[in-house]
């Protein structure tokens, strides 16, 4: 694969270097302290990553504090309220955990989570996260490109789509007792989207393992799509010839499409997507095409009518 190149960023968006490092240092100290308080002892022992691969990519934006990232979540497996996941995700057991990769592949395999953690060097990727509900955050994720995993199972020529299946266990995920979504949670990507270097198989954030409410122990992050595309607590990855039907498409086919690319020009039927509120900021900011990743991903959709394929 071609080495990944960072995009050009306008000078106006660049934070002065000294300020940037001062912020990072503050965030790291504050984040570490908060994390130590938040995570149960068992996950601390399992996680705490050492040296990270120097990231080829990082949005030069102020990071959203860890306290907000871990307290304000949409993770309906634990309830539909924003504070439900933080309050209720303690019941999720992240060990043992395995991910079955199957379907249109030459070498289907069930991977143990600890093997995935050692599969490729973890890097920190600072991505903007834009929720379909018009709020956003900036999150320092840890992971490696999904392509690293997919190439190990050798997709066949028929593999046109990738489906992600999240854990379905109402005993661990009390929100699944409600029928608000069709469980298990399913998401999907086109194979070229899945192989894109920005598409991150994510195992941690803020330098440590994923907190349960953020989709532990393994989730997707696709930064140019609305947040719900990034499936959490994944147990299955299936390569398919046909486009899968995702949980949100099933729930609201007129409101949630397969692509769900961040697009300020294509509104949700019930609300505008032109602006967003960055968590921690007062005034709304303009939403960027493909969440600011247009240079990298726009070619994937060349010639497509994005209001039709929303």
């Amino acid at each position, binding site marked *: 694969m071609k080495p990944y190149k960072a995009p050009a960023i306008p000078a106006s968006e660049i934070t002065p270097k000294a300020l940037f490092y001062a912020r990072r240092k503050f965030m790291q100290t504050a984040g570490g302290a908060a994390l130590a308080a938040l995570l149960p002892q068992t996950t601390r022992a399992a996680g705490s990553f050492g040296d990270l691969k120097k990231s080829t990519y990082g949005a030069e934006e102020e990071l959203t504090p860890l306290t907000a990232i871990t307290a304000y979540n949409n993770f309906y497996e634990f309830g539909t309220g924003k504070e439900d996941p933080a309050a209720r995700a303690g019941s999720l057991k992240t060990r043992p955990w395995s991910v079955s990769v199957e379907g249109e592949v030459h070498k289907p395999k069930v991977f143990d989570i600890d093997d995935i953690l050692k599969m490729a060097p973890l890097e920190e990727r600072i991505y903007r996260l834009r929720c379909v509900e018009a709020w956003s955050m900036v999150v320092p994720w840890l992971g490696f490109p999904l392509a690293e995993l997919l190439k190990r199972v050798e997709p066949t020529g028929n593999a046109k789509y990738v489906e992600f299946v999240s854990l379905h266990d109402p005993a661990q995920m009390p929100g699944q007792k*409600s029928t608000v979504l069709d469980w298990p949670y399913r998401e999907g990507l086109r194979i070229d989207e899945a192989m894109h270097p920005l598409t991150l198989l994510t195992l941690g954030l803020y330098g440590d393992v994923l907190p349960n409410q953020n989709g532990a122990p393994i989730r997707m992050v696709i930064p140019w799509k609305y947040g719900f595309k990034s499936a959490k607590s994944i147990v299955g990855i299936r390569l398919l010839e046909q486009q899968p039907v995702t949980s949100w498409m099933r*729930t609201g086919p007129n409101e949630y499409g397969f692509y769900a690319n961040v697009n300020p020009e294509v509104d949700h039927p019930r609300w*505008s997507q032109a602006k967003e*509120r960055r968590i921690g900021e*007062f*005034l709304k900011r303009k939403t960027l095409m493909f969440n600011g990743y247009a240079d990298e991903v726009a070619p994937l959709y060349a010639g497509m009518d994005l209001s039709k394929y929303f």
Partner: protein
Amino acid sequence: MAIKNLDNKIVGRIKAGVFLLALIPLLKLSIGAYLGKLGANPIEKISHVTGYWTLTFLLITLTPTPLRRLSGWSWPVRLRRMLGLFTFFYGCLHFLTYLVLDQFFDWDGILKDIVKRPYITVGFPAFLSMIPLAITSTDNMMRRLGGKYWRLLHTLVYPCAIGGVVHYWWLVKNDLSNPIIFAVLLGILLGTRVVYRLRPTGQGKQ
């Protein structure tokens, strides 16, 4: 029976108690804002809480009339004006949250919302319709309008309530459990009125 018709002194005390209770949601919100405990998205929280209490007070305001018909209790009707004004009060806070905190006087954005967003298309007139009701809530205005016209004007509260519940129904992403509760309660409150209007024995009563 005594409980059906309490004397002025007791109703006065109940009124004072309800007045204080009705301020609790605002007090909780203010303390939360002061302590920075409104969560990661405080504007959304303020918007949701004020909207929730507007609808709740609206339903409570619509309760004394069917209650009188069903149980014969007449004293709650004497709290109705105050409850209606609290509905308007929380409605104003909800609207101001949208205007100032959410949109920050982005008139262009607000106009687009009113035209294009069904939940705002229905919510905005529901809010506006409360204004004449609040203005004409005084004894003086009631006298000036005369009972017949005053009552006619105040039937605006019915489309206002329906608009409020539809507004809530249309804005939630997909968990309709709360909007359904409000819709069922409103259905009972309005349904009772319809039943009494249709029944011959209900005639002559207000």
